[in-house]
């Protein structure tokens, strides 16, 4: 029967998530993990750029821009913090350094996106597109 397995599996996953979410100590990131992180940051940057371009064109509401960009910012910021304390696996130090820098820039841009004026939006959109372009 599948049913009794459900709580056990759920508990296992919940436990793993708690461990992952606890973020205690620094982790060592392999090239594969860094690539994954880079993809995730690229996604956030591209989404932020799309939102900024739409807002610039008058297509978005102020509330949606503020709330949605905050979700993007929080995720980028969490990523930036974990990258800044992570150690790189042998041969991946340069990539980690690059990602940490870009994650920091991305966080700052996304934080600003929520309350940027209409005049600031085009520059912000370009910055976010640049960050997305530098990530894999």
């Amino acid at each position, binding site marked *: *029967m*599948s*049913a*009794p*397995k*459900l*709580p056990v*599996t*759920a508990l296992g*996953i919940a436990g793993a998530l708690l461990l992952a979410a606890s973020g205690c100590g620094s982790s060592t990131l392999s090239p594969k993990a860094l690539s*994954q992180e880079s*993809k*995730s940051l*690229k*996604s956030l940057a*591209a*989404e932020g*750029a*799309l*939102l900024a371009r*739409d807002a610039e*064109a*008058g*297509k*978005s*509401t102020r*509330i*949606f821009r*503020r*709330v*949605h960009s905050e*979700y*993007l910012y929080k*995720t980028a910021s969490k990523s930036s913090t974990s990258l800044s304390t992570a150690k790189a696996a042998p041969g991946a130090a340069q990539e980690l350094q690059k990602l940490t820098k870009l994650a920091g820039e991305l966080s700052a841009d996304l934080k600003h996106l929520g309350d940027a004026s209409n005049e600031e939006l085009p520059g912000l959109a370009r910055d976010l597109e640049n960050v*997305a372009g530098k990530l894999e």
Partner: protein
Amino acid sequence: MSLKNVLAVALGILSAIGGFVDIGDLVFNTQAGATFGFQLLWVVVIGVVGIIVYSEMCGRVAAVAKRPVFDLVRERTGFGAGLATLVASQVVNLMTCAAEIGGVAICLQLLSGLPYRVLIPLAVAGLAVASWVLPFEWIERVFGYLGLCLLVFAVAAIKLHPDWGKVAHGFVPGSHSGGSLLVYLYFVVGLLGAAMTPYEVYFYSSGAVEDGWGPKELNLNKVTATIGYGLGGFLSFSLMIVAAVLFLPQGIDPQFLGTPALTAEHAFGKVGLLLALVGILFAVGGAAIETCFSGAYNTAQFFGWRWGKRERPAAASRFTLAWLVIFALAFLVVITGYDPVKLTEYSVIFSVVALPLTYLPILLIANDHTYMGSKTNGKLANVFGVVYFVVIIAIAIAAIPLMLVTHGGQG
């Protein structure tokens, strides 16, 4: 058929279309489109046909036996198997209900700008009041009709000018590109799970009894299940298409409930954005009520309690208490702050594991002359039913390993 009946059928179909999409469809269809483009459209077709086949069976059982499916599950399969089915369905219902409530709160936040944590209790209170005050058919109609705002995604899919040749190609299963085979299979499982979620058939079946269906409604059952769910499937196609056109080329992986709304915003500006948000709000709000009621229906039917939205709350007190408790438990899950989108991914994958426990009793009862008399499954219904059951077994076995190996589709 009189004009009044045609109107009733049309209204039923409209609410079925609007009520088809829930948070699971939103999450999996947009993520699949953003990862594999149009290549997984064929899976939506398979999922939609599956839910049509089994909903038609459920509706027929309810109309002929005048009893909903879960009422018959314990009687037909015995206490042990019935209890296992109940536990599995309740775990999935609760997770899904919590995810939908989180989705409602996020939509309200994107519309109002108020803090998420403040909106969670407001969302639960609003849904509970709507469930208490509105008659059954009005719950279906209000949430179903306003959920039709999601049609903005269908229009956006046209406005964003996809390559229709590639779209057509996506309806044919074949080789894939853009991600690993395991991630592709994970999305196949997730899309099927999202389309064939157990609560939908339980709610459909109990709803048929609530609406007083009898043998006269067998044709209405066929039409509602086939056209309602069939057209509802177009919303799933639309979500996948807009994500494929807008997100895939830019490398956007939709991880937030507001992300799909960006497609409507991009295509139609503020009006599109607001339609998308209102559509999502009522689609996930309706699904929250459906999952909650589905849980209460199942519990009441299993233990033989008096049940039904048509009953006065005091007359069906344990049923009423059951859905209030489910809302309260779902509230406790959401208020922890766990991401509703992640919760959706888990609830859909766990629902896949529970699918055989849901669909096997339906197949057995729909073939049982004791309950169905001359209205048992025909050859076609049985061929589809058995083929789908084999598919369900396969994806139920593969679901959790695929989720773990692919890190929830992240590769």
